């Protein structure tokens, strides 16, 4: 494998405090330098992305008095893809008196991540979780309530307590609207300059520090430079490398990848989450996959026929001829096992030929028992919008016929490497939310993405960034400096190249083919042979892309084909790194399942002696061998063991 990468020096998280875990966040906040309120307005911060992690950070930094410039590619910050999160947000409030605590949320998250996350970070996340709920309620987020007026909770996969706060099946929407309104309040107050329909295409690094970004105005095509004292990337995950995913069409890796090319290490790129409950693919024209919230697994029962090739109407299949395989294999967690386990189990029964629906790529999610037990109105109240969405997309009525579901790419645990302060390996470049790698290890638990995005944006970053900004304001930068003009010309050259190739294939056709390669060889199950094949195919396809892509129109206009082409070009480079990372990690952990490394009954088998580390990759040039830096993971509080949900 040495032909694919080079092993470099190990790295360490120098910012994580030592001592008892429950004191570490206090300790870091105390040791971090502060910035006098009068000095804050002399300091500027760029925030890229307006999802939960970006909008909350921009609003909070604006409230603190910093001068913030914010960018999003959408026409309004309210449309960032956090809006689509359905199920809920975890918090260790223990409002249910069911034995929950900060420690238990910490423990569940470390275990759920299959012992590949940092204890200090996860503990802080659990601590901050309780403040998030308070903050959101104060903003007017209409969480579900009980008749007594108190907040309601529900359970999610991988845990045995009820700690998930929710707003019907639209929790992400409500939380994002809360953050968006806080952001717009700061726009009105003049502390935040909001730039919609702007896409970051390059990071500006001067004297080793992140000092700005190059963005394209997506309406006029103008290439603009924005300079600041620090840059925050909150640009989301990279699931769209698979073409079909539950991500929004515009989600992309470009901001992160451009930073990676400028020196920020990219950690654990192979850790991707395949969500078990999505609506199956229906045809070649399909542009995206739609998630059905994991919360459905609270009341829905998952099954396939016991016999292969049983094509009867599901309602005609008698109880004793059904295999409720999750309940059978995992009696203590049943239908609420973590996502990686539920997805793989679905794949296994389909591989056995027991899948249902067109192509045999589906399993049933059945609410017949729930409707019998709770009555249809109660099911409607809890899941109505999800059932409507299902019916709209498939044309089938899930109150009558069981839903058909299949796993789909949903979330990426990997991302830019950051220390405890959320600072990347480029000083002054901070990364929050899904764009960083820090808290979920090899698998994220349900309702934890919203928690992490808001923890980072409202509470963590606004504290830790002070420590960096206290050394500023940094020297003003002349736009004529070579680092700035080179970044601008790199952007222009790339655009010119993409527009001038004028080949015979559309951007989408390349993207779709790349997605197939990734899904087949770097998806739910991976092995050495497949990954090597994938790397070769990606290289060939990338070479063809740069010779044969067809992008119509010009730069000086709204040009959606050009936008897509730039994003797909970066996905090609990322895809190769994902495969190299997956190949080098000869173990299974969480969402990364290597068929060579499994227990006798087919569960993920970790190799802690060899792989209990974060794999952080350094870019050395397109098509060049990346350099691997290992950050050792130490577990002082949670004992590393084989995960069991049986």
């Amino acid at each position, binding site marked *: 494998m040495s032909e694919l990468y080079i092993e470099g020096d190990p790295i360490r998280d120098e910012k994580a405090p030592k001592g008892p875990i429950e004191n570490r966040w206090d300790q870091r906040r105390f040791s971090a330098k502060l910035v006098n309120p009068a000095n804050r307005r002399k300091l500027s911060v760029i925030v890229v992305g307006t999802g939960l992690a970006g909008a909350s950070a921009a609003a909070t930094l604006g409230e603190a008095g910093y001068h913030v410039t914010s960018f999003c590619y959408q026409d309004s910050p309210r449309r960032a893809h956090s809006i689509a999160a359905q199920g809920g947000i975890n918090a260790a409030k223990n409002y249910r008196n069911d034995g929950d605590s900060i420690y238990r949320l910490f423990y569940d998250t470390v275990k759920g991540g299959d012992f590949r996350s940092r204890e200090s970070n996860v503990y802080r996340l659990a601590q901050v979780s309780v403040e998030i709920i308070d903050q959101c309620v104060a*903003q007017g987020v209409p969480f579900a*309530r009980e008749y007594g007026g108190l907040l309601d909770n529900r359970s999610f996969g991988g845990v045995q307590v009820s700690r998930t706060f929710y707003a019907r099946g639209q929790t992400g929407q409500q939380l994002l*609207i809360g953050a968006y309104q*806080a952001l*717009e309040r700061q726009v009105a107050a003049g502390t935040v300059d909001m730039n919609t329909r702007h896409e970051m295409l390059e990071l500006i690094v001067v004297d080793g520090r992140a000092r700005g970004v190059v963005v394209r105005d997506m309406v006029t095509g103008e290439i603009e430079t924005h300079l600041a004292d620090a840059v925050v990337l909150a640009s989301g995950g990279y699931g769209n490398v698979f073409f079909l995913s539950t991500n929004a069409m515009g989600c992309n890796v470009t901001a992160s990848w451009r930073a990676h090319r400028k020196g920020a290490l990219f950690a654990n790129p192979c850790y991707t989450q395949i969500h078990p409950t999505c609506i199956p693919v229906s045809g070649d024209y399909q*542009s*995206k996959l739609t998630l059905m919230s994991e919360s459905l697994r609270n009341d829905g029962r998952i099954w396939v026929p016991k016999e292969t090739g049983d094509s009867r109407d599901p309602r005609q299949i008698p109880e004793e001829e059904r295999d409720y395989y999750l309940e059978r294999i995992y009696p203590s967690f049943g239908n609420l096992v973590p996502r990686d386990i539920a997805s793989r189990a679905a794949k296994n029964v389909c591989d056995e030929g027991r899948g249902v629906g067109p192509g045999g790529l589906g399993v049933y999610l059945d609410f017949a028992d729930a409707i019998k037990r709770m009555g249809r109105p109660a099911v409607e109240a809890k899941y109505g919008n999800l059932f409507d969405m299902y019916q709209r*997309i498939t044309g089938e009525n899930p109150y009558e016929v069981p839903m058909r579901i299949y796993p789909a790419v949903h979330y990426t645990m990997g991302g830019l490497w950051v220390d405890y302060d959320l600072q990347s390996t480029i000083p002054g470049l901070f990364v929050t939310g899904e764009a960083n790698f820090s808290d979920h290890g090899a698998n994220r638990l349900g309702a934890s993405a919203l928690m992490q995005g808001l923890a980072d944006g409202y509470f963590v970053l606004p504290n830790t960034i002070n420590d960096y900004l206290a050394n500023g304001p940094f020297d003003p930068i002349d736009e004529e400096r070579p680092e700035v003009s080179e970044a601008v010309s790199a952007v222009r050259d790339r655009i010119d190249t993409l527009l001038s190739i004028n080949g015979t294939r559309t951007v*989408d056709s390349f993207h779709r083919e790349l997605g197939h390669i990734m899904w087949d060889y770097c998806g739910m199950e991976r092995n050495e042979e497949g990954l090597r094949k994938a790397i070769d195919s990606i290289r060939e396809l990338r070479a063809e892309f740069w010779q044969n892509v067809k992008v119509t129109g010009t730069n000086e206009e709204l040009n959606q084909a050009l936008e897509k082409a730039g994003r797909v070009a970066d996905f090609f480079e990322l895809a190769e790194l994902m495969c190299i990372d997956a190949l080098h990690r000869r173990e299974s952990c969480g969402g990364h399942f290597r068929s060579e490394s499994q227990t006798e009954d087919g569960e993920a088998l970790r190799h802690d002696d060899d792989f209990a580390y974060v794999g952080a990759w350094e870019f050395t040039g397109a098509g060049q061998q990346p350099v691997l830096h290992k950050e050792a993971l130490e577990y002082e509080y949670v004992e590393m063991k084989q995960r069991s949900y049986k």
Partner: protein
Amino acid sequence: MKITLRVWRQKNRNAKGEMVRYEVDNVSTDMSFLEMLDVLNERLTLEGQEPVAFDHDCREGICGACGVVINGVAHGPETTTTCQLHMRSFSDGDVIDVEPWRAKAFPVIKDLVVDRGAFDRIIQAGGYISAPTGTAPDAHATPVAKKDADRAFDAATCIGCGACVAACPNASAMLFTAAKVTHLGTLPQGQPERSARVVQMVNQHDEEEFGGCTNIGECAAVCPKGIPLDTISELNQDLLGALANGELS
């Protein structure tokens, strides 16, 4: 099935637009409306023509980015977002007109893409509760009656797509504004700013040159999220109350 589209094509904000006719073959009934446009765009690109520009992102009906007028109806024949409209709602041989939202406050940027920045500015004017990060009391400090929480939620599900404006003969954004006024005004947390909020938001609404509301109700009829029309009554009530209290600054 085979569909004939007549699509509004407009090069940029200042250019003159026109309807252009396209035939689309092999349309599957399981396709979404936007996937059908994707298929058209793939073909146009390969023929060297410019693909049709349209806004879209999540394609699951929640981000509010998409929205076109289909045969004269905002978001088309089903009460949903354009991305959740499927071709099974049409028949073989149909001729479908596809146009952008049309309103003075939503200038066309290109083809079917319009500028909805006015909505953000209405929110900036007061569509929030001032609760700076870190200042919140415990979430259970103030119970909220379930019916109020539910009412607030129903209003808060607005996705800001703009269909209400496109459907209104006056191009009024009153349903959008009222949804926010009702969401925040129904909750105890929203009370301190309730009067100022409604006055400021309505002022901004008028400054953006949205039309006045004459209670026609087309807005609620096309709203993909079912925002109730009575939110507008609530807005009017709040506004009158605020004006009577001398809140008009």
